[in-house]
C-alpha cells in the first residue's frame, strides 16, 4: 500500500497565484484532514472530511477550499496565494474508529513570494 500520497513535495508561488495541493489515500479511510505547520510550530487544522461529499472547516480555513468527490482524494485549493500561506502542508487520513492513528503524507513545502 502507498498510504497517503501528497503532491507536489515543494512549490514556490507568486502572490496572487492559485494552486491545488493533491492528496490521495488507498486505505479506504473515511476521515481525511489538511493541516498546516508553520516553522517551529504545531499542526493547525485547515479542513477535514468525514466522507465523500462532506467537508467542514477547521481552525484556519480562510484562504483555502477543499472538495471530496471520492473516498480516495481530498485536494486543497489556494485561490489567491499570500505570504502568510507559506508553510508545510500535511494531509492525513484515518478510519472512523476513534482509537485509530492518523496516517500522514510526507508534506508539501509551499513558499509564497
Amino acid at each position, binding site marked *: 500500500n502507498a498510504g497517503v500520497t501528497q503532491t507536489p513535495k515543494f512549490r514556490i508561488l507568486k502572490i496572487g497565484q492559485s494552486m491545488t495541493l493533491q492528496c490521495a489515500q488507498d486505505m479506504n479511510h473515511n476521515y481525511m484532514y489538511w*493541516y498546516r505547520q508553520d516553522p517551529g510550530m*504545531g499542526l*493547525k*487544522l485547515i479542513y477535514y472530511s468525514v466522507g465523500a461529499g462532506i467537508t467542514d472547516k477547521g*481552525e484556519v480555513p480562510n484562504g483555502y477550499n477543499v472538495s471530496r468527490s471520492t473516498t480516495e482524494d481530498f485536494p486543497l485549493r489556494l485561490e489567491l496565494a499570500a505570504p502568510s500561506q507559506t508553510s508545510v502542508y500535511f494531509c492525513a487520513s484515518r478510519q472512523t474508529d*476513534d482509537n485509530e492513528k*492518523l496516517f500522514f503524507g*510526507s508534506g508539501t513545502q509551499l513558499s509564497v513570494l
Partner: protein
Amino acid sequence: AQTVTQSQPEMSVQEAETVTLSCTYDTSESNYYLFWYKQPPSRQMILVIRQEAYKQQNATENRFSVNFQKAAKSFSLKISDSQLGDTAMFFCAFMKHYDMRFGAGTRLTVKP
C-alpha cells in the same frame, strides 16, 4: 473547541537518561483519545503512543510511557533511556470523533 497546550518549547537530555514532556488539554468531553507523535528532521509524523480516556491504566510502549491524569487534564510523556534517535519534535494530540488537534510541540534534543 478542544485546545492542547505544550508548555515546554525546547528540552534537552543526556543520552541514556530520562526526560518528561508535558501536555495539558481543555475539553468538556468525557470520552476521547490522546496521542504523542514524533516528528524527526525528515518531517515524517510517527505515532509514539496513544491513550484512551476511559482507561485508567497508563499506556506504555517500550521506552515510552505516559502519565495520564484525567481530572487534571494532563498527559505527560516519559522517555526512558533516551537515545540520539529520539532527537525530534514531539507533539501531543487530542482526538474526539473527527476532531483532532495538536499542541505547538516540544523540541527535544538528546545529547551524547
